[in-house]
């Protein structure tokens, strides 16, 4: 048997909680600060409306050159962003309210005027302002309802405190991952949404796996101290936690290094999310669940039994 983690690890995770809570709080505040300071500017075309063109250029260009070239042809206030890849792609965004033909014609003309045949439009997006807001609202509604469903299910199968802890953790993971994402110059769009949903999936999965062990251990030793049980369960599941996260991280990094465009953006978000998901189970869900049970004075009362395992065949 090859082993990565020494089997009888006894890391006292709970003693690290205070430090981590300060770190998490700071990270959340920083994320909100980033989000607030960008305001509407954090949203991409999908969610704020406007026109977006994805253009490839033959030859040596940079964002500033393209912006200046467009401005010289009468297209002002274009936001140009570069995507790294085998071919250089640039996203050109305009917030004008004019209709698609007009803007497309204008941009096509300006590109031709400034760069001749070097520029090719690969992709155009137009999202009407009302549609952008609606997409944002429906996405938010779906995600909030999804979170409530998760809270209810986990509260039923585990404890309310665990459900509460996992919601706090999901919030923590998504806010910080999004903060990092925005701070690194990305905009919130549909790809981000898919990324956020994936992060939520991994984070809940992680919580369930660890607290399944807590549930099992508490079933065995009904009078044990909750803090000790959680700490033990975290150590029991440590080898799984590390193997799973390293493996998924590998895939996300591969996507980041090889992928392009939306996939590349998405994988950056995933890398942050996978790391945060593992962290938050240990340092967010556990303390929140523990403190809630302490507050209710139930931290040494028995919890729901694990469901009967499927009978061996």
């Amino acid at each position, binding site marked *: 048997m090859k082993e990565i983690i020494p089997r009888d690890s006894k890391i006292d995770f709970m003693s690290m909680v205070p430090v981590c809570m300060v770190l998490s709080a700071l990270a959340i505040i920083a994320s909100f600060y980033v989000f607030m300071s960008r305001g509407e500017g954090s949203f991409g075309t999908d969610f704020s409306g406007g026109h977006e063109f994805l253009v490839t250029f033959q030859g040596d260009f940079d964002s500033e050159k393209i912006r200046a070239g467009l401005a010289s042809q009468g297209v002002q206030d274009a936001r140009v962003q570069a995507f790294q890849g085998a071919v250089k792609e640039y996203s050109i965004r305009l917030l004008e309210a004019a209709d698609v033909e007009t803007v497309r014609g204008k941009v096509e003309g300006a590109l031709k005027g400034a760069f001749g045949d070097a520029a090719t439009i690969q992709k155009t997006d137009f999202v009407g302002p009302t549609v952008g807001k609606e997409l944002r609202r429906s996405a938010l509604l779906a995600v909030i309802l999804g979170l409530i469903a998760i809270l209810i299910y986990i509260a039923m199968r585990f404890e309310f405190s665990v459900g509460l802890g996992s919601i706090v953790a999901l919030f923590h993971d998504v806010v910080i991952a999004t903060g990092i994402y925005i701070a690194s110059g990305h905009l919130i769009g549909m790809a981000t*949404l898919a990324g956020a*949903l994936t992060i939520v999936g991994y984070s809940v999965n992680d919580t369930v796996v660890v607290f399944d062990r807590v549930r099992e251990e508490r079933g065995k030793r009904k009078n044990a101290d909750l803090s000790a049980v959680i700490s033990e369960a975290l150590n029991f599941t440590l080898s799984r936690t590390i193997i799973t996260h390293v493996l998924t991280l590998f895939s996300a990094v591969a996507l980041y290094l090889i992928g392009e465009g939306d996939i590349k953006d998405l994988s950056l978000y995933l890398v942050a999310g996978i790391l945060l998901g593992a962290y938050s189970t240990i340092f967010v869900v556990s303390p929140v669940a523990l403190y809630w049970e302490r507050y209710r004075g139930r931290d040494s009362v028995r919890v729901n039994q694990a469901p009967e395992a499927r009978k061996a065949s």
Partner: protein
Amino acid sequence: MDRDVFQRALILGAVTIAALLCLLPTAFKDNFPAQWFTRPLAMGLDISGGVHLVYGVKSKEAVKSRLQSLLVAVRSELRAKKIAVAQSAVSADGQLEVTLLTDAFVEDAKSVVADKLSDLSFKNVDSQGSRPKLVYEIDPRMMQRIELEAIEQAVETLRNRVDQFGVAEPLIQRSGEDRIILQMPGVSDVNAVKKVVGSVAKLEFRLLPSSASPAGVGTVTMKDKQGGPVVLEDQALMTGDSVVDARVGFDTNGQAEVSVSLSPLGAQTFAKLTSENVGRNLAIVLDGVVYSSPVIREAITGGRASISGGFTTDEAKQLKIVLKAGALPAPLEVLEERTVGPTLGLESVKKGLMAMAVGFGVIALFMVVYYAKAGVIAVTTLILNAVFMVAALSLFGATLTLPGLAGLALTIGMAVDSNVIIFERIRDEVRAGVGRDLAVHTGFDKAFSAIFDANITTLLSGMILYYFGTGPIRGFAVTLCIGVVSTVFCAVFAARLAFDYFELKGKRGLSI
């Protein structure tokens, strides 16, 4: 062989064969007969390239144009009864106002309208001005019905027009109250699509006013093709509804023209209107633009008319399509438009697939090195899992989009996790000194509750996302839900079967 293992092997075999059958069209693409029960897995526009449009139907306009035609009807009824109308209009808030010349005919006028036009309800007589103004309004339920019909008819018309366009597998779908989603894979000229699909194509025949115009017929000003003003009678004598066929031809000067065939009833109306108005100019108006206004030389009884007006051959072809497919009941507004060039989509798919292959390779390598034979079982179930997911997608006729790929990646990640949870559990037991076979049994049993709860949570949020989400969120949710079922089946059922099989064959101590 143990009966239980045999039965489970049968189930797994049956599911695998069914999945492969679902995938046949995807594997062989066009060489596969179209009668097969699944189609090749469709790629979303973000992957395959194409045009995605979201139209909003301006259904209020349909109500307005209905009011306009009611107004014309009211006026001609009144004219037939020799009741003089000073002015008539549709007000901004959707009321019909008819101003009479004198007070004398108010009651007569009211009864004429009540007799003939039950759609309208009389509101009041506004006598603030010097002349009496009869105000009518349209029943709100009626108004709602017109709006609803307009939206349904718009979907139908779009479908007809898109069929004419001849694109493989277009998607036309009503969304929300008054929106239509149109997706055309592989199409890159969005402007041509919009011209054919999005133009109202309201064809009208109107007379130019002359001294022969009957009293009470007003005038409207429209534009000609160059944008100059043209004054016309405000009453359309015929509309495009009676067009049954249209084709492109060339006139004597070699200019493209569109000739239309009229329905029998339309032919009669046309014959009547041309015979009554010989010598006058008849304007052919399309979407408020006057294309031509030739002089009527003689009655036209053949039920054919041609529209010329200096268009290019392409314009004539587009006009032919819209005339054949019928007019839209209300104008459309582009709310969202996305086009993806075909090479871009293909490039990013290639890169994405390569990245996924590399990621999967790393995972497979690790599993085999770390868990030995058990790792081989895990990798096999992962591959099965991917096969099942894609098969289910093509069975449900789902479209694979980038968010969908993210959903697939998430479930593969969770499947790896399920294997790791089970194997680590088995190892725990082995370390505790339990015999290998028993360790496998206990490990699977103990790991089950974690895997079960984790996947049910995911399934739950997947279903909510599907139900409340739109577009891309739905694509993500579909693959997530399919993935959860397939993952539990592969990681628990199939993997356990493999372990049990090796145990039966007596290979004691399957390495893990």
